[in-house]
């Protein structure tokens, strides 16, 4: 029922627009932190930009996303406005969550970004429920749960995939396999060679794909989303990628394999994608440079907006706990 076409030129350019935004935003985040303008726990996604950029190009605006602490790339790709995002990570009232959630709990239902969790594995059970709701409402929306390779070893993964398959839910389990879970390498934590192979244990399609290849990633994402929307059930996608930085910005990352890391950085998917867009005539150097310049400008604006936004009042400490206000 789904064809196997890759993205056309305009779609690729659309994807690149996101990729460039994500990369620039990551670099700016680290710069702002290093400059001491902002203090926050920051989980860099540098190297993983292609995956969510493609996924969001395949999704509709009103499809749902449940993501994790390392998920700012997912959110930006899904359409979270830069200003709201920056104000939130700066802990200001103009943030998506009035500054109360922070970088690990950004939420933006207007673009379907329903939950960001800091608990490994917890995106999946919740995405199931959203997908169940979609199906009852027959609104055609699908839900995507993103998570890491490390998360594929925790109980919630297992329970979620079993339930989703049994219930044939319109959900996509998107594993971003960056080969590390905190300080632990893939092989030291995961007993199976390919996480995608675990899908068979749930009678669910499982596909391992090069998440840094926009064409391959597009095909895999499209197939999964089409399947979900057609009521055929969930898919597990294992998108291979790499985390260029340590687990949390500032850690020494001595636990990472130096050669493996150097090779991955050498094969940075963003400049490769960019070069191909030009070589294939999809966009000119000037066009891309203009896009990138515009992104920088928007980030400038967002950062300044965020840092000028006020902190929340202390009364916020006890609001939003219950609908009615403070209790007990």
């Amino acid at each position, binding site marked *: 029922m789904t064809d196997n076409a890759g993205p056309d030129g305009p779609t690729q350019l659309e994807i690149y627009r996101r990729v460039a935004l994500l990369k620039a935003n990551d670099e700016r985040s680290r710069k702002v932190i290093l400059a001491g303008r902002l203090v926050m726990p920051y989980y860099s996604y540098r190297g993983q930009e292609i995956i969510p950029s493609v996924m969001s190009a395949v999704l509709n605006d009103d499809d749902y996303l449940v993501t994790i602490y390392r998920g700012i790339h997912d959110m930006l790709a899904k359409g979270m406005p830069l200003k709201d995002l920056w104000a939130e990570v700066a802990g200001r009232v103009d943030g998506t969550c009035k500054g109360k*959630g922070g970088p690990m709990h950004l939420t933006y239902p207007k673009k379907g970004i329903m939950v960001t969790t800091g608990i490994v594995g917890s995106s999946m*059970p919740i995405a*199931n*429920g959203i997908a169940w709701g979609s199906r009852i*409402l027959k609104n055609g929306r699908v839900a995507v749960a993103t998570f890491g390779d490390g998360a594929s070893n925790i109980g919630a993964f297992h329970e979620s995939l079993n*339930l989703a398959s049994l219930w044939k839910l319109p959900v996509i389990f998107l594993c971003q396999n960056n080969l590390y879970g905190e300080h632990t390498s893939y092989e030291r934590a995961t007993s199976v060679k390919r996480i995608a192979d675990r899908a068979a244990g749930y009678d669910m399609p499982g596909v391992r794909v090069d998440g840094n290849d926009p064409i391959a990633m597009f095909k895999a994402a499209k197939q999964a989303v089409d399947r979900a929307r057609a009521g055929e059930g969930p898919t597990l996608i294992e998108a291979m990628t790499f985390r260029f930085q340590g687990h949390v910005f500032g850690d020494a990352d001595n636990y990472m394999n130096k050669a493996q890391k150097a090779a991955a950085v050498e094969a940075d998917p963003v400049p490769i994608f960019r070069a191909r867009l030009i070589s294939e005539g999809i966009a000119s150097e000037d066009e891309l440079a203009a896009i990138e310049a515009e992104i920088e400008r928007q980030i400038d604006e967002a950062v300044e907006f965020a840092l000028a936004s006020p902190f929340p009042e202390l009364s916020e400490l006890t*609001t*939003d706990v219950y*609908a009615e206000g403070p209790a007990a």
Partner: protein
Amino acid sequence: MSESATKMKRVTNIQAINAAIADAMAEDDMVLVLGEDVADPEEGGVIGVTKGLSSRFGEERVKSTPIAEQAIIGAAIGASLVGFKPVAEIMLMNFTTVAMDMIVNHAAKLRFMSGGQTHVPMVVRTMTGVGMGSGGQHADYLEAWFAHSAGLKVVAPSNPADAYGLMRAAINDPDTVIYIENLPSAWTQGDAPEPGHVVPIGTAKVVKEGSDVTIVSYSRIVNDALAAAAMVEEEGISVEVIDLRTVVPWDKEAVFASLGKTGRCCVVHEAVAQFGVGAEIAAVVSKEFYGRLKAPVARLGAPYAPVPYSKPLESAYAPSARQIADEVIGLMA
């Protein structure tokens, strides 16, 4: 089953809860039910609390699940986020231990962490209580954990009419409500609720008036408190029994009003006494009534030990009416 329950004179707790969920589902398409064995092919739950619901409302709204409590609560949270009001069953309260992340890190906090953008209007039904002879892992009262977790509400009815009214309130509540059912008294009868009867969350009930001592309690053991009151009445002690019904937020006003009369307080629950809900109530009461109490606040709960199997031990685990009566008498000494 459901329609008849509110037409009968006497109903069991099971019938009352069943009727409450059925009535809510009939009124509002957004009410869902999920949990192990809850649908009719599985007999509507291990003891039939959800019997008939899937036949009446369909298996898309009433879903039996695998044995996977994280998946159950996760699905309920997700559905909540897109506008549904799920009633999720965690069969026994001890099994909430495998779903605490979903309940406490997520359901309780999403409203706050999202700055009010999302919320989780789900109900978590769960059964517990000693008396079934099931030993150490099936009968704990863990309401203190949930009470300590801001963002949750906790209710625990002692009789069918309140069970109905609190379920209706819980389903309508915009936040997550932990709804605790006492298992050994599930088949106990009481007066039937009026259809549509709502017991607002946070409202206690004076189930017996009195002037010497106030017993504050909730869940099944309220009935033992009433028995204790009758015992000491014979010795000339007049006891007021307050059924909190809601543990969070507990009805301070009602408790304070009663203590204003009696000046003596005994908190009774089936949970372990140490670090239990009774500690919070005793601490608040001791402070609020500093210098005005006629005796120190008494607390009764289970001993600091797991639930034992052997019948004589199990029977001695939760405070008995006799023990409550003795405690009350002690307050008058």
